[in-house]
């Protein structure tokens, strides 16, 4: 039907439905491409870490150099919290897929609380770590990687907060849960990235 015929009938004229040429959902694909880009951003920070710690002729023999030290144990507990929150996120998503609304909301709130606890612990860690951004390249790398990750946790928490608000208003159902799935994918990415950051900065 042409635009003319349409106008003559004064019908609502929307676009023709696009042909779906891939089995992948556009939103999920978009999220994965965004995460690929994000992984490369972390990659540039890890490259800086690699230069400072490995390539640089004046690289410190001890990590972190004397007299500083990283709170490996506290950060380890924090890691456990964040990894657990990935499981509760998954539980929440599975619950809404099965239509169990209470379990979904409980899972989302648990995830949010754990993410928030992680971020709060990191702020406290920054205040008590005993060095500042200007105290050498090791500190640059430490604040760079953990700070970049912290910013991602903050974005993730915002997304989770939106899911909770909309969840309480009953906007998700077994048929419509993309709004839960996409922040979930992002949250898992943030968690996996933290394991890499924790291993690189604190452990090895």
């Amino acid at each position, binding site marked *: 039907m042409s635009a*003319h015929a349409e106008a003559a009938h004064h019908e609502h004229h929307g676009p023709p439905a696009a042909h779906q040429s891939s089995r992948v959902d556009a939103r999920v694909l978009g999220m994965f491409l965004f995460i690929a880009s*994000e992984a490369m951003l972390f990659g540039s920070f890890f*490259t800086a870490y690699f230069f400072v710690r490995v390539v640089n002729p004046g690289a410190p023999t001890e990590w972190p150099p004397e007299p500083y030290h990283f709170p490996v144990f506290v950060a380890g507990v924090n890691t456990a919290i964040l990894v657990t929150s990935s499981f509760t996120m998954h539980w929440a998503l599975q619950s809404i897929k099965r239509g169990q609304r209470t379990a979904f909301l409980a899972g989302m709130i648990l995830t949010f609380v754990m993410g928030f606890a992680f971020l709060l612990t990191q702020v406290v860690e920054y205040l008590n770590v005993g060095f500042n951004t200007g105290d050498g390249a090791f500190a640059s790398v430490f604040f*760079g990687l953990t700070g970049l990750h912290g910013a991602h946790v903050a974005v993730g928490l915002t997304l989770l907060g939106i899911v909770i608000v909309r969840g309480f208003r009953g906007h998700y159902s077994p048929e419509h849960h993309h709004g839960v799935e996409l922040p979930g994918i992002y949250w898992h990415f943030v968690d996996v990235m933290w394991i890499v950051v924790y291993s690189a900065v604190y452990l090895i």
Partner: protein
Amino acid sequence: MTATHDQHGGHAAEGYPEHFEPPRGRAWTMAFGPGLVRGAWMALRVVGLGALLVVALRAWWGWSPYWDTHIVLVVGAMTAAPIGFLAGIGSFDYWLHYVSGRPTRPEDHSGHGARTWRDYFKVNTDHKVIGIQYLVTTFFFFTIGGLMAMLFRAELAQPGLQFVDSQTFNGLVSVHATLMIFLFIIPAFAGLANFAVPLMLGAPDMAFPRLNALSFWLLPIAGLMFLASFLVPGGAFASGWTAYAPLSEGQPMGQTFFNMGVQWAGASSIMTALNFLVTIITMRAPGMTFWRMPLLVWANFTTSLLVVIATPFIAGSQFFVMFDRIMHTDFFTPEGGGYVLGYQHIFWFYSHPAVYIMMLPGFGIVSEVISTMARKPIFGYRLMALSLIGILVLGFSVWAHHMFVAGMADWLRVPMMITTLLIAVPTGIKVFSWTATLWRGRIRLNTPMLFALGFVTMFVIGGLSGIYLGSVPIDIHASDTYFIVAHIHYVLFGGSVFTIFAGVYYWFPKMTGRMYDERLGKLHFWLTFVSFNATFFPMHYVGLRGMPRRVFDYAEAFGQLNFFISIASFVLGASFVIFVYNIVTSWTRGPVAESNPWRAHTLEWQVSSPPPIFNFDEIPQVVGGPYEYGVPGARHAVMSPAKEHVAEQEEVHA
């Protein structure tokens, strides 16, 4: 014939959805409705909020002085203000509605399509409008960047200091390069592709129209940020568009505008690229397999992959420099344990792939133009697509050829030289394929074709000097001379800019529904072609004789040639005036264009000029390759039968 041109003019508004009627008066809507006015005051308001936040936090931690102009500018003017502006013009309206937990609004398409010129200054979700917004914006910044080039060419016309001081000279050179790269070549390609790619795919729009609108509006922010650097104490950023550390770390405040401007331009690029990838993967018309996609779509597919993977690295590099400058970190300061050369590695890991980001879409445009105008199928279609992928993969393995003289590890040189020379193979395949496509074709030498042919010849010259520079001994001799300037302009001006001109002329009738003036177009081409060569070819010679780049002064011996180069560059600048005149007059009162003046097969030419608001009334069925010119009975696509029927009726009436 499958379509007519009579949708143009008075009929253009038909079929458009009703605009949402605001419940308030005109003045209220003007000030508080989404638009540039609200954008301006919201930007100003959040600058204040940002400044307040900085002062409050500094006071809380007891850092004196509480007021630090540099930090306030970074947080208030370069981070908060753009977000406030974007919110003000209405980029976030739909999302904020969603976030606040209200039920999703059904899409009313009121932000779709343009009825008057005012609609181009609003957030618009129509990929055709966004494409034109991109092109007009990028040509605006192209003009400014070009005027800067005129200014420093005037300075370089004779040895010694005449018009500007040395820091301003370096600032002009740096901002010129930055605008041309981040505000012209990369987004101009994004604009052309925004217009053409969804049409070529048989899709009603891009996959994420609101994201598409947002990625356009990030661009003027980045451009104004680069320009605003002229206004702060110390002048514009002056360490080149490469902004090498540690030079960039000791620069005045203007450098921070570069650090942050790149973030906004980069975010824009990544969003668009992501949008293209999702659109190309999920929204192809039935029958449009990957091996039936036009090469422009292939080119944007590979370019978008490059953008998504590589652009975060320049973001990282500029973050590190900015942190070193304002947070006193030591990423690139050796005295604090940083690694100076790290900057160049991280920067070039983006910026070498970036030269392919600035070239591959041009390859796509030229493939469209040459095949259509030579009336022949493109030679070696699959190899053309595969060579794009070859460039994509190899492009990530050559970055350190920019660093042969930088003092990096010696063992890295030869591997980088080999991969660099290898890139000539897929690129050579493309040049030979274009030549073979032309062979015994029925060539129409109109303006797009002239620019396409000009591109092929100029790009071969730039490619050959690239092969010289890729080999270590010659690079060591020619590094930091005008030979490099000649090379980059043969590749980026004779290459990319020629393809942008080819693309603008080629799609101009489709975009505007009007025809440009062919005589003025040809005059523009020949004047550009001759003055371009007169400007940049002598630079090879003065470069090899040892004239260094990025210096306002030079030896007396180069005086005459530089005077000649400057005069030629002014002619080159003047040739652009012809283009602007041609485009503006043709757009307003040029003759009405046919729907398919080039008799092309690709889908964008099978709809009216300009295309209907939702591109297709029904999604077409693709049945063959896109370039089967001169092949009896070959068809690329079948448009909906109902539409063909109506089109025939309209022809009878006309």
